């Protein structure tokens, strides 16, 4: 009996010392282990952006024509591709959660004392780990082809993408939980949102030549401001309002995403 009392006192002490940051770090570590234990997935995820840069880039250079070399096309196109891989990675991340809901691992984790927001934030932050590595490698690969490198600017650019990515990741988790009973619904919603958002952000082709309605829509698309900010930053400029707008768009997305996500996690009965 006396040991039982001591045990429960020790348990209370442990619980009292929990912190949100510690919880986020624990969740992040668990998720990141999948990458560490299976680095091939990371290598494979580099193929897609490189294909885009290598095959789509020259075409874009051809369309732009006159004097624009491959190097300056890269300067325009590469930040867009970095945004694209962020969007792909973070918007698909809900599928991992859906898998863990299906197998039961998520329920087991829900039964631990981890705080609910930490479950979501740790997972969303995990998507940024490979992203940073991908972005750095893609950028370095582009340098020999005439891409001008501005390391400090790229760091700021990745920070914006990081904040934005947490928001998109959290929304993806909310979607995964909402569609947990039919997997295809997750992909249907994710795919039908992803491509319009990407195209309407001017990520692939500049929207200046597009019709008015497209330009109007792009103004309402938070991704547009992210893409603009990344382009300005990757070309070595801090002093531009686009950077500020980019940060605002990223913070708003993260706030909305986390609010929706945490609400979904706490309100849903699995």
């Amino acid at each position, binding site marked *: 009996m006396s040991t*039982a009392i001591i*045990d429960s006192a020790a348990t209370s002490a442990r*619980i009292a010392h*929990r912190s949100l940051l510690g919880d986020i770090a624990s969740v992040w*570590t668990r998720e990141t*282990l999948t990458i560490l234990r299976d680095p091939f997935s990371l290598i494979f995820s580099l193929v897609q952006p490189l294909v885009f840069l290598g095959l789509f880039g020259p075409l874009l250079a051809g369309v732009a024509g006159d004097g624009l070399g491959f190097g300056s096309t890269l300067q325009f196109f590469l930040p867009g591709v970095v945004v694209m891989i962020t969007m792909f990675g973070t918007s698909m991340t809900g599928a991992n959660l859906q*898998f863990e809901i299906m*197998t039961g691992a998520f329920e*087991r984790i829900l039964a631990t004392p981890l705080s609910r927001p930490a479950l979501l934030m740790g997972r969303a932050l995990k998507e940024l780990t490979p992203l940073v590595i991908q972005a750095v490698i893609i950028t370095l690969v582009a340098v020999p082809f005439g891409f001008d490198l501005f390391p400090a600017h790229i760091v700021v650019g990745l920070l914006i993408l990081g904040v934005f990515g947490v928001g998109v990741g959290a929304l993806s988790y909310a979607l995964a939980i909402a569609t947990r009973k039919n997997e295809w619904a997750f992909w249907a919603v994710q795919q039908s949102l992803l491509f319009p958002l990407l195209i309407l952000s001017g990520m692939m082709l500049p929207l200046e030549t597009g019709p008015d309605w497209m330009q109007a829509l792009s103004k309402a698309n938070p991704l547009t401001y992210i893409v603009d900010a990344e382009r300005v930053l990757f070309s070595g400029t801090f002093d531009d309002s686009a950077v500020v707008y980019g940060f605002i768009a990223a913070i708003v997305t993260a706030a909305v995403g986390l609010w929706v996500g945490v609400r979904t996690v706490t309100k849903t009965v699995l």
Partner: protein
Amino acid sequence: MIHTHQLTRTFESGKETVEAVRGIDLDVAEGELVAFLGPNGAGKSTTLRMLTSLLPPTSGTATVAGIDVTADPAGVRGRIGYIGQKDGAGHNYRVWDELLMQGRFYGLDKKRAAERAEELLGTLDLDGMQMRKVSTLSGGQKRRLDIALGLIHEPALLFLDEPSTGMDPQNRANLWDHILRLRKEFGTTIVLTTHYLEEADTMAERVVVIDHGQIIADDTADALKAEQAGDRITVTVNAEDLPTTREVVAQAGTEVEEAPVDGGTAVSFRVDAGPVALPGVLHALGDKGVAVKAATLKQPTLDDVFLNLTGRSLREGAEA
């Protein structure tokens, strides 16, 4: 360890309100081994999910390990272990990583988590599985890993939701060995749900029968069987011996029933302690010159208890 008062949970399904759990009052003392028995959809799992704070009650209260589930759900979760119906370990993870991270989730430091992981791998016959990917484990190994995950923080109270569903008899027996040893060594209080009659009968000391969201019986398996069904002796006799048999039987037991069978009549009746009563009854009949052609003793199962309580068989319910 557990105290509930009028614990209730309803679900909204379209316009309908489904009452999954209707006013459960339950007390579980430290060190008890309790099985919630009932058909699928009876409210067993919903009750368990409320006790583990995974599901907030619609009304009523529950105190688990000294903590109110509604006021401090995280506090409850930190003090109990929960092993759900599905695989707790992530399929894409390594066994060691999952155990270590589970320790971190419960607030253990790295050193302590590693010690516990090592201990549990040994206890649960998972030595050498450290670097294996969870998806490559067999069903029995996965289940034992789930138990290890549920025990990483040495909870004094452990909940298991349908722990042996889908397991073959050998793995089920093996799982029970582990559960019973845990209890013997650490005095862990264990609450589990099951729809396997034999499991509740042989393993649990206390059986809580749940049906339609309510507790309809709560006692040891033996007491439930004695109270709700009782042992039945059946003797088959010729027609000319029937009147004498009726006399003897009327003294020996109750709830007498007669049914014609090949070569006579089967007279069955309820007695308190069948194995003890049977020789006496046969002697008494023999003394009075009755030629007993056949005699059987049937001891009740928990299914008879359930049948008696609800008018339905649990077996049919379980298969449905």
